[in-house]
């Protein structure tokens, strides 16, 4: 019926992709439960950006703190993808690392990382790169202490560069269709290897290769969310409860999982070939599917769910 869909548009349904880091945090956790660490009033800003004549942000593009989610205490960090592409600078990285280390003391039920990053902030590249290494070490320590670290990915900057590596270190990942996870970005590949290797303007190709649906189908992410904060909240709660341990058995399983992926899909040129081999009947229709239809496909794909992280 013409007209009936207009009535169903809910203006309160906050899009994860569109929301700022602060909006995501506020809407993700139990109302009123968020306590920020090093909030904007403390003005812990980058000491380096002024050298480049660039504006700074009061929180250096990352919001961190503690909150309750479904009644259980968590620590969380949210990157602001619109400030400097959510990239890791010195303060930004130091805040994430500090939060992860604090988790060892505080022993929250979980740590949530709301990724939205292009990787390392070039103006502070060495500090950013080192902070990423520190964050990965800290995540491993937190996981080994039995605290799940769950990544949520669906922002406009995606999860690129070192952010992709940090994500790969987490216990669990939830991703939406708009979320992208990758190390080299499309533009970087195109600049270095040419448009024949990767046409970065072919956005359908970009999302097919790095987007949320592909990552979910191939087991690169553990949950697929509609683009709403509510969906991410639901996924986060569920993933916390089924986070794998960090131990030799887990990494042996991951080794086997990743080896099997190369053996099975190593000769595929395009994601649609991968999906076909995963048993998806009409792979060309996957990008156009809505969440429910896509979830039904995922349920039939064995590779999608595993504890091998």
């Amino acid at each position, binding site marked *: 019926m013409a007209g009936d869909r207009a009535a169903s548009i809910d203006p309160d349904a906050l899009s994860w992709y569109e929301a700022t880091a602060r909006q995501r945090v506020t809407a993700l956790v139990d109302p009123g439960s968020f306590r920020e660490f090093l909030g904007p009033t403390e003005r812990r800003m980058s000491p380096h950006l002024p050298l480049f004549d660039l*504006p700074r942000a*009061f929180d250096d593009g990352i919001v961190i703190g503690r909150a309750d989610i479904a009644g259980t205490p968590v620590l969380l960090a949210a990157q602001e993808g619109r400030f400097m592409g959510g990239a890791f600078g010195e303060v930004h990285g130091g805040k994430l690392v500090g939060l992860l280390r604090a988790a060892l003391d505080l022993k929250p039920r979980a740590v949530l990382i709301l990724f939205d990053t292009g990787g390392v902030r070039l103006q502070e590249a060495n500090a950013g790169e080192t902070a990423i290494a520190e964050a990965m070490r800290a995540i491993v320590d937190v996981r080994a202490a039995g605290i799940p670290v769950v990544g949520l990915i669906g922002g406009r900057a995606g999860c690129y560069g070192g952010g992709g590596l940090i994500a790969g270190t987490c216990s669990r990942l939830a991703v939406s269709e708009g979320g992208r996870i990758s190390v080299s970005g499309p533009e970087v590949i195109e600049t270095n290897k040419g448009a024949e290797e990767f046409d970065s303007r072919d956005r359908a190709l970009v999302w097919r290769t790095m987007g949320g649906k592909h990552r979910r189908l191939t087991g690169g992410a553990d949950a697929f969310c509609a683009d709403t904060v509510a969906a991410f909240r639901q996924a986060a709660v569920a993933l916390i409860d089924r986070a794998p341990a960090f131990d030799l058995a887990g990494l042996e399983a991951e080794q086997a999982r990743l080896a099997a992926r190369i053996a099975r899909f190593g000769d595929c040129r395009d994601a649609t070939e991968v999906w076909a081999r995963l048993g998806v009947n009409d792979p060309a229709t996957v990008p156009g599917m809505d969440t429910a239809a896509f979830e039904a496909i995922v349920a039939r794909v064995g590779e999608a769910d595993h504890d091998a992280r």
Partner: protein
Amino acid sequence: MESLTFRHTTKTPLPGTQPSAVTGVVASGNLEVLLERVLPPDACEVAIDTPIAGYGDVWAAVVADFVARAQPGGIRISINDGGARPDTVSLRLLQGARLMEA
């Protein structure tokens, strides 16, 4: 980078008890506004860091109109500008004031 500071006297304090609020994001054409209830109730100060020099007159006019309209007494406002247009600045200031009144 250019730094600007404007000081105004207001007729009334900004209602509400919220001690601080932040709105907006530092991005191209956008800005971040931090509001703190730290000044005497009839004072308002707005400090701006902007990468685009030479628009002091426009900032002065935008801030003056905002102060006249919102009467943000007691509030110190700090702005990290990413090259926002004046209408965006006005909007963020009003959004910030509304958050403080909550």
